[in-house]
Structures are given as C-alpha cells and as structure tokens.
C-alpha cells in the first residue's frame, strides 16, 4: 500500500505549468524550481518525498515534455486524477511515475488529507474521511513500468540502450531520483 499527504490541484493542469518550456533542458535541480511557478510559487520546496497529488480532469494536457520526471524527482509517490490525458499517462508509464485515473477523486479529497492507494485492488481511501473510491485498473505490465522507472531500465536490461549518465538527470536514472516511500 502507498500512503501519504496529498496536494490538491484543479482541472486541466498543463505540462506548461509543470515543466515550463524554458526549463525543460535545465539541469534537474534548476528545472524543479519552476514546477508550478506560475500558479503555486515555491511548491517544489514544500513537497516531501512520499507525498501524493490529487487532481481533477484532463491532467497533463499540452506538450509531450517529460513532466512526470519532475514529479518523480520530487518523490511524488502517486498521481491520482479524475482523468489523465493519453499522452501524459503514457509518459507516466514510460518515464516511471505511478499514476491512476480515479473518477471522483478530486471531489473526495481536501489538501493535506492522507490518501491510501492499493495496487492490489486499485482502491483509493481517504484516511481522514474513510471514504473509499475505485480507480481504473491498470495492466500489471504498465504498473511494473511505472514503479520500475519506465522503459529505459527495461531497454537497458536487454542491452538495447546504454547506462544512464550518473551526472545527468537521465531518464530511468534511479540513482539520481529517490524512490517514493512505500509503506
């Protein structure tokens, strides 16, 4: 089970808000400073590894940039949203961020409440209110990619790509990215 404090976000959260265009190619540490700079300045400083995000519909709309990497680098344990755009969802799979679509989740949580997520039956529980919601089930293979760092570690294990550069924020470079705390 995954459990943690939640940050509540709204509908239509775009990748331009998560990873502004001018920040995409910056070194990781600098890039993270700009996460939600336009809407919640200082957010990245207050996030703790193991926190979760709860959001409304259409999460991740916009550019294909690897915005899930920034959440992963900050240690976000799971993204829960009423709906997630196809492109953002597949970037969660391929770059390694646990993300579940859970209709009604935004309405069921307030900021700072604690969420519990089960990857066995894909239920989401609000520990504060006791309310339980059913998230969409995700095929085992996709869950493995999301929690295992995405497609690069997989390709590396098959000898198809080289190792991550430990000095860079390479995709799948788990050494540079702390694993989310799993309780």
């Amino acid at each position, binding site marked *: 089970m995954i459990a943690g404090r939640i940050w509540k976000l709204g509908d239509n959260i775009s990748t331009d808000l998560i990873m502004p*265009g001018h920040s995409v*190619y910056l070194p990781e540490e600098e890039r993270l400073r700009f996460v939600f700079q336009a809407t919640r300045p200082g957010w990245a400083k207050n996030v703790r590894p193991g926190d979760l995000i709860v959001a409304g519909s259409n999460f991740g709309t916009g*550019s*294909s940039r690897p915005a899930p990497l920034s959440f992963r680098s900050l240690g976000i344990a799971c993204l829960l949203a009423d709906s997630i755009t196809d492109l953002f969802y*597949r970037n969660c799979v*391929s*770059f390694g961020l646990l993300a579940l679509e859970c209709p009604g989740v935004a309405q069921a949580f307030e900021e700072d409440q604690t969420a519990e997520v089960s990857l066995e039956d894909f239920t989401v529980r609000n520990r504060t209110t006791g309310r339980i919601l059913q998230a969409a089930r995700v*095929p085992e293979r996709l869950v493995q990619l999301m929690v295992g760092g995405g*497609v690069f570690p997989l390709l590396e294990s098959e000898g198809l790509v080289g190792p991550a550069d430990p000095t860079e924020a*390479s995709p799948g470079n788990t050494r540079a990215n702390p694993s989310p705390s799993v309780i």
Partner: protein
Amino acid sequence: MGKTIIEKILARAAGGRSVAPGDAFVVDVDIAVLIDSNFFPVYWREIRKVADPKKIVVVFDHRIPAPDRASARAHAVGREFVKRFGIERFHDVGPDQGISHVIAAEWGYALPGSLLVCSDSHTGSVGAFNCAGRGIGGADVVYAAITGETWFRMRPTIRYDIVGKLRPEVVSKDVFLSLAHTYGDHRQDNVEFGGPALADLSLDARRTISTMATELNAGFVVFEPDDLLIEYVRKRNPSPFEPQWPDPDATYKDRRVVDLSAMEPLVALPDAIIGNVVPVGQAAGEPIQQAFIGSCANGSFDDLEIAARVLAGHRVAAGVRLLITPASQAIYRQALKAGLIEVFTEAGAIVTSASCGVCAGGHLGVLGPNETCITASTRNLKGRMGDPTACIYMASPATVAASAIAGAIAHPGEFIGNMPS
C-alpha cells in the same frame, strides 16, 4: 460491423487484429520521427540497436540554430546517432530543415493509411494526410525506434462532415476555434473529418485543423483521402500506400455537421482555448506588444499568404513586434519567390528561420512580464510563450496580422474584405 478510418489503420498496424474501443494493443510503427529535443540528457540514452533505419526520420526543429551549448551538444548527439545507424532521412539545420510535422508532409513521410509516431504532442498534424499520427513522448519514441513497436488504447471515433464555404476573411484556424467553442473537450476520442466541402480546403488548411485537434484533447485525428492529397503524396514519395476510407456502416460515437458558411473570425482569450473563444469583435481594441504567425499549425504557405494580403501596404504599429516563422525552409523559399517576405519586412515584421522557438517559449521571441501577445500558433496556455504573467490571445494569421497593424486586437475584415483573392 463497419470501421472508421482510424480503426482500419490501427487494425492493419496491429497485424490484422480487430481493435475495438477500450482495447490496449501493440502496433508496428511505419515511421518514427526523432526530433532534436530527444537528444537532450533529460530524454536520451545511447541507443545500441534500431529496428529499421529506413523507418526512422530525424528532424532538428525545437532549438535551432543551437541557441546555447546544451543544444549544440544535443545536436551533436543526434548527428552521431544518424551516422551510427546510417539514417538517410535526416533534416539538419540547412535547406531541407523545418518543423518535423511539416517535414513529414513535405517529404511524403506521412503516407496515407500508415502509422507515424513522434515524441511531440502535435504529431496528429499528419492526420490531414490520412495518416494516423500520435505524439507518444520522448521515452516511447526511443522504444519505438529500437523495437519498431508501440502501444495505444483504442478510443471511439467522432465524425465531422464539413459543408459550406468559408468567407474570405475566415480561415481554417477559425474553423478549429469554432470546433473548440461548439464542441469543447473531446476527452481523447478519435476524430475523423470528411464531407463535401473537404475538396475546397487546401492541404495546408486541413493541416491547421489536424494539428490543432490536439488542443481539443482529441486522440487520433484523420481526414478522408481525396485526389488532391493522393497526387501531393505521389509527387513526394514513390513508396506504395493504401489510403483508407471509412466503411459506410462505420460506428461513430457522434456525427456532427460543420458548416463553413456560418463561420466568422474568432479569438481565444488568454490561458485556455476550450470554453474561452469569442468573436474577434469582443476582444477588439486590446493593446498588444507582440504578434506571432508560425508553428506547425500556422507556418504554411497559405498562412503566410493571407498574412501578406493583410499586411501589404501597411506598417506594423509602433511598439508592436510582429514575428513570422515559415514552418520550413522550403516554405521560406516559396514565400521569398512569391514576394511575401518582402511584404513582411517592408511592413516591419521580423522573419525567423523555421523552428518551434516562439510557439514553445523556448529560445525565440520569449514574452516578458505582463506583456500581451496575439498568436497564430498552437497554444495560449499560461506561461507557454515566456513569463507566466504574459497574456496570450490566439487567432488566425489574418487576425494576427490585422492586430499587428492596429497595435491592438483587430478584425481582419477591414483589411481583407475588398481584396481580390
């Protein structure tokens, strides 16, 4: 049960398996397009094998010419990748360069009936060519280049039948804004365009709509093929292809008629498109500091031509920067020969080389605090083109050009209404 165009293309790519809405399935990729962004450390790992170098296209478009050392290094990594695997379809900075989706069109890589992937979110652009294209992100496009495969979730299809005829001051960007206004969020459903008025829309006009469909939150978007398209593709690519039409009894989630005759110039107010579109008149008079015409959506010859028709004989207002980006060097040359570049520069506009720079707020024309811009490009999201306090209005190239002359948002009709087309 009959199939839509997208269901047919994806069924073929899935090896003949029937795919129904709801299914997740693996497909063979016909073309994987890599762009310069993919070679930055945030995306890249050294690739040791590719499935088929002939099915890979490499285009530098996001950060060109290299504005900084990090970009120069990424470009070097890309050139090394091209060399290592003998990739012939390489569009480096030079005469054959352009924005990747436009290159896919100009060089006939987007074959009717085929499946094309790229990391970039506007890859649906190639749908105007009856080609199923989708942005799949930087990691999955590397996976596709290596294995020749990717995966999708099948969605239902919404069908649009286009009828009627556009007025002179109304262009396909207004058609898109009208769809956004009338139908809103498409929630990842696939979209198919056809109908009797398709023949009156140029391929450039169709490409604006297919590119912008991403901003409707559409999934795949495809247009029906016609003679205009097939002739265009045959001139550019000798490879055989199989255009796909929908079955007469195809199952659609919804079927909608779009009447071009009823359209007027529209503008999206800052920060969002869906739920945020008004007739130009309602925003008219809003002062601007920057105006932009370009991007994969609005850097075509058609776009430049209508902008030139508005700008001819006028000057850009004092205090306004008008930036124009032809979407490829080929379009740039075509515009030069047609006299459009002269019109732009005489009017006081700046013409840039082909890149995603201004649209993506990357390394060109970045907006400062509290500035207002009107743009004919792909997005007006908060912070998209620079400072998060900047306001970005979105409209057609005609409306943007008219606004640049007026120094404030303006209707293009007064500049274009009496001109011969």
